[in-house]
């Protein structure tokens, strides 16, 4: 888990650097300070489970096996990314990794994630879906419809909300009149848990319980992970609207530093071992960036491929699809 969190943090630093160099274009979002949420939950998934990560959940992609160089290739708009340059930032999906891509419309993924969970239920497979979203997304009608739907059908899904206190520049109290995201759960007859989202073990423990319940037919749980967005909304945003003291306060709660401390105190890793792990991460990232930059840009001749199935032959993603006849 320390590896995943640190890998996510450092990859995002590297992505930011590539963005400032003008090599990555478009919108770029970071989950800085929120690494414990995707890490402490996705780590619990089994091979046939599925995840629906959002834009601050990079560790979920890594844990599901998407390689760092492929992710960099995606950000760089290259051919070897999972969308072959058709989409950018964290809009990555890969059926073979059971990563179901979210889309920009906040909360639109939640009904779709329900459908993935439904497919497990329909086929009597003992699998679960982890579905991620932010606090702002919970204001949308699609979110409310999907919560209700998931609860009515007792779908095998866990809803994970990162409450990072802001949706773009809008603070949570402008987003909802209830104090906590979990206050919404009773409206759907759904169990909920509120945890310290900067404590990877707390996220792990709550998700474990929710997965157990979902797998055994007990239906969904809404987990609220209290955290803070340690960056602007996206790389272009200086977050001047966030009081400095809040950044200072939350800097002291860094999930990575906290977990390092736990591991050292329990004698599970020494400071040297951690340092060596971080060196390895730095090396892996440099190699990944290099490999990604060697990946070609897509050919303009591919522009129309894959709008429909009959023109998708050339897209290797088609082979990874579990859908019959695709």
């Amino acid at each position, binding site marked *: 888990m320390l590896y995943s969190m640190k890998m996510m943090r450092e990859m995002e630093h590297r992505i930011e650097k590539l963005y400032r160099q003008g090599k990555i274009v478009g919108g770029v979002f970071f989950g800085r300070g929120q690494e414990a949420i995707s890490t402490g939950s996705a780590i619990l998934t089994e091979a046939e489970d599925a995840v629906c990560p959002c834009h601050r959940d990079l560790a979920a992609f890594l844990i599901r096996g998407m390689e760092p160089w492929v992710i960099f290739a995606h950000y760089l708009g290259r051919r070897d990314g999972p969308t072959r340059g058709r989409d950018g930032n964290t809009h990555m999906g890969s059926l073979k990794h059971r990563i179901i891509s979210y889309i920009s*419309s906040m909360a639109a993924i939640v009904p779709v994630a329900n459908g993935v969970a439904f497919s497990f239920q329909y086929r009597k497979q003992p699998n679960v879906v982890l579905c991620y979203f932010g606090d702002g997304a919970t204001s949308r009608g699609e979110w409310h419809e*999907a919560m209700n739907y998931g609860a009515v059908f007792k779908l095998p899904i866990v809803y994970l909300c990162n409450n990072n206190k802001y949706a773009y520049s809008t603070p949570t109290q402008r987003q909802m009149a209830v104090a906590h995201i979990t206050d919404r759960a009773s409206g759907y007859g759904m169990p909920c848990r509120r945890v310290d989202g900067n404590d990877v073990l707390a996220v792990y423990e709550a998700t474990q319980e929710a997965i157990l319940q979902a797998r055994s037919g007990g239906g969904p749980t809404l987990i609220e992970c209290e955290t803070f967005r340690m960056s602007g909304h996206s790389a272009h945003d200086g977050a001047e609207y966030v009081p400095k003291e809040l950044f200072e306060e939350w800097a002291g709660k860094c999930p990575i530093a906290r977990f390092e401390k736990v591991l050292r105190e329990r004698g599970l890793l020494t400071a040297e071992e951690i340092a060596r792990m971080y060196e390895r991460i730095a090396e892996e990232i440099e190699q990944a960036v290099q490999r990604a930059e060697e990946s070609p840009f897509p050919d303009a001749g591919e522009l129309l491929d894959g709008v*429909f199935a009959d023109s998708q032959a050339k897209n290797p993603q088609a082979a990874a699809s*579990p*859908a019959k006849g695709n």
Partner: protein
Amino acid sequence: MAERTYLEAIREGIWEEMERDGDVFLLGEDIGAYGGAFKVTAGMLEHFGERRIIDTPLAENAFLGAAIGAAIMGLRPIVELQFADFITTAYDQIVNYAAKARYRWGAGVPMVIRGPSGGGVHGGPFHSNNPEMPFVHTPGLKVVVPASAYDAKGLIKAAIRDPDPVLYFEHKLLYRRIKEEIPAGDYVVPLGQARIARVGRDVSVITYGAMVFVALEAAEVLAKEGIEAEVIDLRCLVPLDEEAVLASVRKTSRVILLHEDTMQGGFAGELAGRIAEKAFESLDAPLMRIASPDCPVPFSAPLEEAFLPNAKDVIEAARSLKAY
């Protein structure tokens, strides 16, 4: 062969596909015990059970999204919209999720979204719409508009087997009004093949849905005046059988583009563009569009009557084209 109404033909097509493929299932409001607002799914719950005939909460985003997720995982959902008008409430799921998933990340979404569209039954502004155009305009979606019982069955089967999201707009006026002998067993009408509903040489009426019958009614009258109208039933708007359209235009050199949907931004404009580009030389007269005027579908009988295109409109247009 068996005599079937348009509605029965749809039901039979779905029924046979569900027997053929255990991955096909139905989602929608009141489709189980009640059999759907128009009874398209009557008897299905008893036969296929609750696992496959699923009554959902009143939440179009939730059940359309669920269908999308299930389709991505390889199931073959059919979603019933109680009225096609309400498709607007789940526009985002269809246009931003379903339509773009294959292009973005190779995830096929083999699903059918079907429901009753169209006016003529005093349904008023929220139960009479022809909502096809926003979806015609969205790359990644197919749009099917059956006009006969034979096509209703053959096209729903093709739609269910199709690897991409298909919108299948039934015309509620036709549900019980038309009855035909259709093959009892399995047959498919491939998506993207238009049908010549009546052969003629003087003027082409290119249309779809319930307006096919308006065109045929007009053609009867015109024939008595010596004007032979050819009626092209498009069957599908996407994929479009452009060749069939152009062939008819080249043959008759006079064209009426007819639909029940409103004029501005309607499919006739798309057809006009293609004909002007590809068959301009063949035209002996200007193109004529006949469509509903640009207002919501009104409730009261005289208003709705004035709103909907009718045979008289087509007859007058054909006469003026002939005289041009």
